[in-house]
């Protein structure tokens, strides 16, 4: 604890120096030397460096494998075929080779003779190949060797009686993707719980598909604003459909579903009530269906981001959330182990905090009072619900996928408490320079800096858990998702803190940079971590795995798509902000975005395709599991 105390103190000191900096006059003369800008650029460079490194390694590996396969294709078959020859035949070849002229394989293939063995002898006798003499010699030696029956001190034949060898692969593999280790260990789980988890995840995959279909359509509207002139499909109405669907549909349903498993597993107890779990499932889905129809019909709550659903609709979600929380809490309360595992802290915290903040978010404030609660609600919605919950899931799935404990339990607790203390106070950083009270803005900015503590604590905890197990990451199709999610957790959150500073706000606020940030975090962090958790859990629950090629495609399309998406908007957003500072005509800032919006649509398409593949993967597992269930009955 003493160590952590020192860390906190040093951070507070660090922050106090930045408080002083914040009150100084803002000046864009040397904007490139501003710490916030430099910090963000460094983070961007780190991200690109990691991305390029992984890509280069992968490409190099792929090329190497490809060459190897081509080079070995012909000779391999001959080497293998040689194994079938008898010693006399080998001797004959060696004898023949001394006499005949050597020619290429193609030459020989022109006039092939039968039967097969003769043909092979014929080929090998004449083939001009660099290693063949040596191979024949070795083969000859091998075949002429005979044991004296006592070399191993035993006359037993080798036998894998303990089942140590689980996987024998004679395939050379393929250049595009690695053969990942199979996950066949099936956990003994209550069948009703399995059904709940699979249904939640299935629904979340559907909402991800639907929500990003809308998102992709919206992205294209920036390039072709006249795609349609239907009121229900207009930009202003569809935008909240996209955000609310991916929030409450995709991420929330996936989290709650995974949460049921983690809570039941770590409490070593069946979940309190499966009936309540089903009830909240239907309530949340109903919220999405009714809410989206309302939004498209032009009925919304007042345009405040992420609370566009009117209160009677959001009430259904709130009841679903309260039901879930009761269910979680009762399960934890009846646990058969003494300790409450750290994941449950995060999950329980996320649930109760979100209930409180939804109520505050919908309190009937008017005037700028509403704007204060809007900043509070919109930021907490992301930080207290999605981030906190997902971190809780990672505290279970990361160690369990690596088959080792989390590096530090107390770092996890430190991150939990600082998350609660700091994150709660930073909502107003969405309204820097606005007519909201200056002190409120300053508090928000200072504690945005304070967010470095939970982010660094969390990131280092996860990375130190992974340390020494990087081979397992390369071997697994689950861990790359978690690794990328953790990297984005560090980069996206640090970038968010930098963006809250007054100067960086000056350049980036109101520009497309904000959109890039929200995708770095909600997509780079939350979605990647959730995919990792889902791919880790489903094979354990059902005993069936998705096709590895599909998981690889999902990962790469999503990853490359996100990089294109965020970088185009970050560069475009910066240019936009600088154009505003220069005092250029506003329309210039629209025109200069055109190429960046096009690239955004390209990145978005890749991301969207990856979601289709994800949905197919889930369906693939579900179908096998469902068929097997019927057989059992």
């Amino acid at each position: 604890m003493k160590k952590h105390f020192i860390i906190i103190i040093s951070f507070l000191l660090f922050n106090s120096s930045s408080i002083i900096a914040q009150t100084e006059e803002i000046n864009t003369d040397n904007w490139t030397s501003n710490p916030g800008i430099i910090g963000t650029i460094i983070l961007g460079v780190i991200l690109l460096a990691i991305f390029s490194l992984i890509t280069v390694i992968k490409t190099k590996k792929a090329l190497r494998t490809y060459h190897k396969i081509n080079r070995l294709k012909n000779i391999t078959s001959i080497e293998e075929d040689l194994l079938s020859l008898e010693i006399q035949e080998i001797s004959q070849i060696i004898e023949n080779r001394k006499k005949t002229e050597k020619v290429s394989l193609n030459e020989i293939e022109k006039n092939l003779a039968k039967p097969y063995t003769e043909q092979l002898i014929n080929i090998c006798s004449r083939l001009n190949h660099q290693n063949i003499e040596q191979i024949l010699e070795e083969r000859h030696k091998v075949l002429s060797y005979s044991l004296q029956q006592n070399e191993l001190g035993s006359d037993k034949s080798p036998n894998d009686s303990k089942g140590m060898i689980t996987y024998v692969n004679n395939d050379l593999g393929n250049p595009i993707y690695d053969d990942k280790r199979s996950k066949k260990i099936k956990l003994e789980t209550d069948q009703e719980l399995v059904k709940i988890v699979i249904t939640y995840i299935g629904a979340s995959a559907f909402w991800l598909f639907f929500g990003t279909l809308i998102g992709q359509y919206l992205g294209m509207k920036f390039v072709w604003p006249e795609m349609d002139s239907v009121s229900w499909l207009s930009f202003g109405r569809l935008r909240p459909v996209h955000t609310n669907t991916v929030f409450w549909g995709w991420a929330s349903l996936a989290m709650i579903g995974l949460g049921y498993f983690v809570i039941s597993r770590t409490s070593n107890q069946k979940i309190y009530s499966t009936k309540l779990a089903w009830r909240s499932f239907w309530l949340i889905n109903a919220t999405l269906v009714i809410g989206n129809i309302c939004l498209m019909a032009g009925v919304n709550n007042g345009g405040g981001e992420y609370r566009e659903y009117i209160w009677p609709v959001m009430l259904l979600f709130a009841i679903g959330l309260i039901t879930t929380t009761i269910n979680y809490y009762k399960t934890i309360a009846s646990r058969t182990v003494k300790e409450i595992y750290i994941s449950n802290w995060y999950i329980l915290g996320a649930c109760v905090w979100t209930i409180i903040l939804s109520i505050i978010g919908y309190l009937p404030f008017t005037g700028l009072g509403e704007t204060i609660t809007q900043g509070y609600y919109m930021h907490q919605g992301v930080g207290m619900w999605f981030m906190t919950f997902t971190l809780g899931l990672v505290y279970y799935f990361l160690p369990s996928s690596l088959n080792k404990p989390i590096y530090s339990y107390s770092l996890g607790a430190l991150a939990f408490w600082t998350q609660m203390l700091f994150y709660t106070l930073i909502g107003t950083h969405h309204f820097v320079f606005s007519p909201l009270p200056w002190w409120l803005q300053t508090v928000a900015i200072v504690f945005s800096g304070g967010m470095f503590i939970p982010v660094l604590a969390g990131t280092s905890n996860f990375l130190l858990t992974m340390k020494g197990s990087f081979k397992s990451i390369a071997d697994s199709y689950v861990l790359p998702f978690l690794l990328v999610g953790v990297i984005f957790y560090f980069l996206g959150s640090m970038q968010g803190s930098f963006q809250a500073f007054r100067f960086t706000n000056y350049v980036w606020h109101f520009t497309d940079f904000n959109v890039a940030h929200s995708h770095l975090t909600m997509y780079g962090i939350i979605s990647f971590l959730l995919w990792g958790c889902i791919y880790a859990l489903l094979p354990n629950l059902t005993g069936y795995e998705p096709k590895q090629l599909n998981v690889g495609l999902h990962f790469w399309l999503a990853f490359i798509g996100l990089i294109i998406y965020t970088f185009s908007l970050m560069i475009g957003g910066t240019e936009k902000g600088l154009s505003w500072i220069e005092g250029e005509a506003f329309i210039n800032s629209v025109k200069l975005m055109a190429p960046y919006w096009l690239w955004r649509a390209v990145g978005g398409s890749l991301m969207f395709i990856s979601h289709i593949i994800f949905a197919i993967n889930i369906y693939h597992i579900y179908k096998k599991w469902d068929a097997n269930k019927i057989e059992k009955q």
Partner: protein
Amino acid sequence: MINLHKDHKSLLTIIVFVFLGLSTLIAIIPAYNMQTKVTPLSKSTALTQSERNGLKTYISEGCVSCHTQQVRNIAMDNKWGDRPSIPSDYYYSKQRLSFFQQSPSVLGSERTGPDLTSVGTRQPSDDWHLLHLYNPRIVVKESVMPGYSWLFEKKKKSAVSENDIVLNVSKEFVNDKYAIIAKQEALDLVSYLKSLKQADLYAVPSPEFIPASTKKETVIISKGTGNLPNGEQLYMDKCASCHQLNGEGLGGAFPSLKGSPIVLDKNHDLMIQIILAGYDARSEYAVMPAFSDQLSDAEVAAITNHEKTSWGNNAQTISEEDVKKVREYLKTLNP
């Protein structure tokens, strides 16, 4: 000693109450203060029924996702208003919309389109707003804003009645046989947009803008000629939405400046007067708003010079002094 690792009740209690406490301090109390301690400015008025209906359309169409309504206290926002926004500005517009709806989030978080805090001052023309709402690309070619055709009705020209408000849409955008009629929703929305103006603060000193740069003057002036600001940028901001970037205007709505006798005239007084005081003498065109409150003498001179020397126009340029004279002359007409 409480052991949070083993005692779920204490854990729950602590996380609930600490979070509630922090939320009260950071959200509920400031929000309550903002709501109760802020009064409207004496010069501002409550929204009329039509403006209120317009605000409802503004919200239900999601205009807030691309348009802000806040002039921040930093120099770059000066173009959106004369002074930074203050809480009182929002007294009337941020009342609850209905039983089912919250106070509208008009401040916005993204500026994909221009800020609308004082769009009523900047663009007071009904015709422009209606055309722009029907299809933004009629008036601003590069715009990416959606068209709101469902706020309008497409009627056969023979069926148009006297009371209908007909839009002047060129053949390029609608078939010759049809006329585009503004529905009540569109008219309400326009009256809401036109009501968006910054109220005067009178004697109260208004908050000041934080300058973007200590070298501000040199940055902006370097692009202009002589001592005047950059006329081309000003033209793009203030004039091009009607008169278009190529100066050719839009037939039937906004007159061409290219080869216009008024622009080319050696005697520049009439042109300066039209810019400063507005113009409504030709029934075939929309009303030209007055810019005397929005533009300084130097800015008017810069715009005038840009118009006099662009798109093939080649007339004598003017100086800041010329504008000053006309402005003083106008003051004597309306003391």
